[in-house]
């Protein structure tokens, strides 16, 4: 079996995974049920997750967000992440208000999955509304394309698909956007995570796995082996997301 070098005890548990989904996956034969996702997180040493419904992302926003709320009441290891459909920016205005009033702190956007381009007026309006409600945003999409609609708005946003090839684009943007954060999932180079931490600080990073759509061990192992200080590692593994939830690290 694969033998790995010993890890510091404090790296065995990753505090918060910012990229967790559940529901049905129409393009895969995959168990993405709530229980399966919870088991997957637990078996990989991940304590908590920011959970969003695939139903909301792919089919129906309101029932999807309700499903997320119920799921997080059943599984306390997860914090709820709301979503809206970029293809219905009008409905999104009401849904964002409803989410904010119910205490949801984070909203996840799915531009590529919902066929939205970076220049979509609906996307821009949704971002403005979410920022107006002081919500944190999570978003998929190529960073080099999707940074623009979030820029110059004071947005707190985590880009979930920042690839190692886009490290330079992320760093030059994060230098002037204090709320921009990169998920570590696709920071797959031997120095991608370390380079961002060194250039703009570990508070611009958060751990994400994309469970259950992606294998969890690749991103978890990469983070556990990262060349970060103890303080930087805690920040990436938990601190950045804790701050979004208004919690002390």
């Amino acid at each position, binding site marked *: 079996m694969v033998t790995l*070098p010993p890890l510091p005890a404090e790296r065995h548990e990753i505090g918060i995974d910012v990229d967790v989904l559940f529901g049905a996956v129409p393009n895969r034969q995959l168990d993405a049920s709530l229980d399966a996702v919870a088991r997957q997180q637990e078996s990989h040493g991940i304590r908590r997750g920011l959970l969003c419904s695939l139903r909301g992302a792919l089919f129906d926003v309101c029932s999807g967000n309700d499903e997320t709320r119920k799921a997080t009441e059943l599984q306390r290891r997860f914090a709820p992440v709301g979503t809206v459909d970029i293809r219905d920016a009008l409905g999104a205005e009401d849904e964002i208000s409803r989410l904010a009033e119910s205490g949801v702190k984070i909203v996840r956007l799915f531009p590529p999955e919902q066929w939205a381009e970076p220049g979509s007026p609906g996307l821009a309006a949704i971002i403005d509304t979410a920022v107006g409600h002081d919500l944190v945003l999570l978003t998929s999409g190529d960073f080099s394309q999707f940074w623009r609609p979030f820029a110059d708005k004071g947005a707190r946003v985590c880009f979930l698909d920042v*690839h*190692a090839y886009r490290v330079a684009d992320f760093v030059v943007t994060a230098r002037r956007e204090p709320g921009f954060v990169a998920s570590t999932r696709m920071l797959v180079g031997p120095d*991608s995570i370390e380079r961002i931490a060194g250039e703009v600080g570990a508070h611009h990073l958060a751990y994400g796995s994309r469970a259950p759509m992606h294998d969890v061990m*690749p*991103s978890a*192992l990469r983070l556990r082996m990262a060349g970060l200080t103890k303080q930087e590692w805690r920040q990436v593994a938990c601190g950045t997301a804790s701050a979004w939830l208004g919690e002390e690290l």
Partner: protein
Amino acid sequence: MIIDVHAHAGPWFFATDVGAAELNLTLMDRYGIDRQIVSASEAVTYDMVSGNRWMAEVLVAHPRLLGYVVINPNDLAAGAEELEKYLPTGRFVGVKIHTTYPGQTLLSKAIQDTMALAAEAGLPVLVHTWDESVLGLVDVLERHPDLRVIAGHMGGPAWRTAVEAATRTDRLYLEPCCSITDAGRYRYALDRVPLPQMLFGTDSTLVDPAIALGVVMDAGLSEDEYEHVMWRNASRLFGIRTEQPA
């Protein structure tokens, strides 16, 4: 024992400091990788001749590394000269062909001719695969009975098609390195492709070996699967001598 069949050495044009071949060894030590088959990033992306030359110098200095001769399919005559130059060294054990940088599609005549050249030389070919065209390798292999091909990245997003292809011929091999780590991708392949055709690759030093190792760990390999995937199959395919016979 781990043999990594898909690795690189040298710098890349991204914001990453991975140019020194010593980093290959550092990462191999960190993750328990014993042997690594590498191609020069320069040869892959820019200049085949100077890249292969640098690679040959690196291989002399680092015995745990073995090499792929990179052949640019746009200049087959020069590629043949590269093989003549480097095969006698005994340090190059395969041919690497990329599609993106030479601007050739996987099933283009130029790439098929390059594969035929490698087959004549008796070398396995590692080729970059990233779409549904990976299925066409079945016909290519049928036309060249001595050819053995590794589908680099297991077809990338077209991994299900790569698996289908590997079930149709016993000379198409799969290795899993990919920054897109779709859940269960490697287990899906292990459950369908004959075990002797499954290999392990990392894309190091462009990609940290943690990613491919994580994929293998999540696939939940049996002891027998592990032994074959991680080194026995590669040892046989490339003729790499190991302490324990493959």
